């Protein structure tokens, strides 16, 4: 079996078990909904002087990264039961394929949660996303991959630690500063009506980050999981 097929098999397995239990997806959807509601207390959305567009990028990406941390935490932790992680490592699939498969599954789940949250956000805060939906989707695709790669790698790195749930956000959020910043700038600008072509430098930051860290993750995952 080639690398791609092995990765896809792992991804399909993860997605299947997630769709049967809906553990992570329900938790992160409910969580992002709660945060979206809480944000309305931080400023007054009904006040016409408040410019929601100016803060919408920041709000959205905070929600997405919180929801991401929640579901990414489970990615490798769910394999601890019945020593499934050892079985995965011992399987003929290389650790790179295991990592890629898990990353793909997380990516699909997180994207789904993000698209639903984006819809809820636009309804609750009266922000028009329709006009720039495709550019925003591109930004989401690029940034979510950055979150997923870093998150899945650190999900593997922290899987055996005592304070796993806390360690993942502590370690990943500072590392995610560049992509999140790029995403926040791009999303805010897009919602404010600035086309993507004006901010190409941020798109390049995202692409560069994705490429560099995907490569590093595949290189280091063997050291992290096996040693």
């Amino acid at each position, binding site marked *: 079996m080639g690398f791609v097929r092995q990765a896809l098999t792992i991804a399909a397995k993860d997605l299947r078990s997630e769709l049967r239990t809906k553990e992570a997806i329900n938790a992160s959807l409910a969580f992002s909904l709660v945060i979206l509601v809480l944000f309305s207390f931080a400023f007054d959305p009904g006040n016409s002087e408040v410019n929601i567009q100016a803060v919408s990028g920041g709000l959205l990406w905070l929600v997405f990264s919180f929801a991401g941390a929640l579901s990414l935490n489970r990615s490798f932790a769910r394999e601890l039961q019945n020593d499934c992680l050892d079985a995965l490592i011992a399987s003929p699939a290389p650790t790179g394929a295991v990592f890629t498969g898990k990353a793909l599954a997380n990516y699909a789940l997180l994207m789904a949660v993000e698209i639903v949250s984006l819809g809820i956000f636009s309804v609750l805060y009266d922000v028009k996303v329709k006009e720039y939906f495709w550019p925003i989707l591109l930004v989401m695709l690029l940034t979510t991959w950055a979150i997923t790669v870093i998150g899945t790698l650190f999900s593997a790195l922290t899987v055996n630690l005592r304070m796993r749930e806390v*360690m993942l956000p502590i370690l990943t959020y500072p590392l995610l500063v560049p992509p999140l910043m790029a995403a926040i700038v791009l999303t805010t600008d897009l919602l404010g009506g600035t086309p993507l072509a004006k901010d190409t430098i941020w798109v390049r930051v995202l692409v560069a980050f994705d490429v560099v860290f995907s490569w590093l993750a595949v290189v280091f995952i063997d050291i992290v999981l096996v040693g």
Partner: protein
Amino acid sequence: MRERLMYLLAAAAAFLLTWNLYKIFFVLPITANVAAYQIVYFHVPAAFTALSGFFVALGASGLYLATGKFKYDEFAAAVTEVALAFATVNLITGSIWARYAWGIWWTWDARLTSMLTCWLIYAGYMILRRSIEEPTQRARLSAVLSILGCVDVGFVYKSIEWFRTQHPSPVLSIRDGGGMGPGMEAPIYWNFLGLACLSAILIIVRMRQEETAREIDSLRRMAHSY
């Protein structure tokens, strides 16, 4: 041998730092227009020390992963800890200076934000080390984090610069220099040398601690196995 090196470095650091203090306060002309500007002679070298420390830690972590020798891991841990201390010095001195010069403790300027993010990444490194007990696992995972962190610092540094240049805000530029004449830059480099000697001592002390800790740990394991 190591002892003698330490005393030598201590003497060099003491001499350099005292000599620099003398120069900063008594020889160099006082620029009246920038308040408490002398702090810059420690603020900037502290940043140099911290950043070079993080790069050295990157190299040591790479060497550990390549060779599997614990001395590189101990070295990386010691260097990161000392560099983090100097990053803290840099942030605090900067904050004190900002209070005098700008009237605020903190501003979300590109440089301040990038140093803070860098600090957070390596603080995470220290927390990660604390939370793993098994030495091989600790060395392996923290080496990976150190390498990823250092690559990320490059991204943080560049992207925050773009962030602020695209969105100019009414904050003062941190690089206004404050009338830094050409003759006044030299103490910064001399102080950097002084602080580098000081950090070398701290690193040696810290490494010795790590070695002792590991030795005690293995003795304890041995005692338990009987």
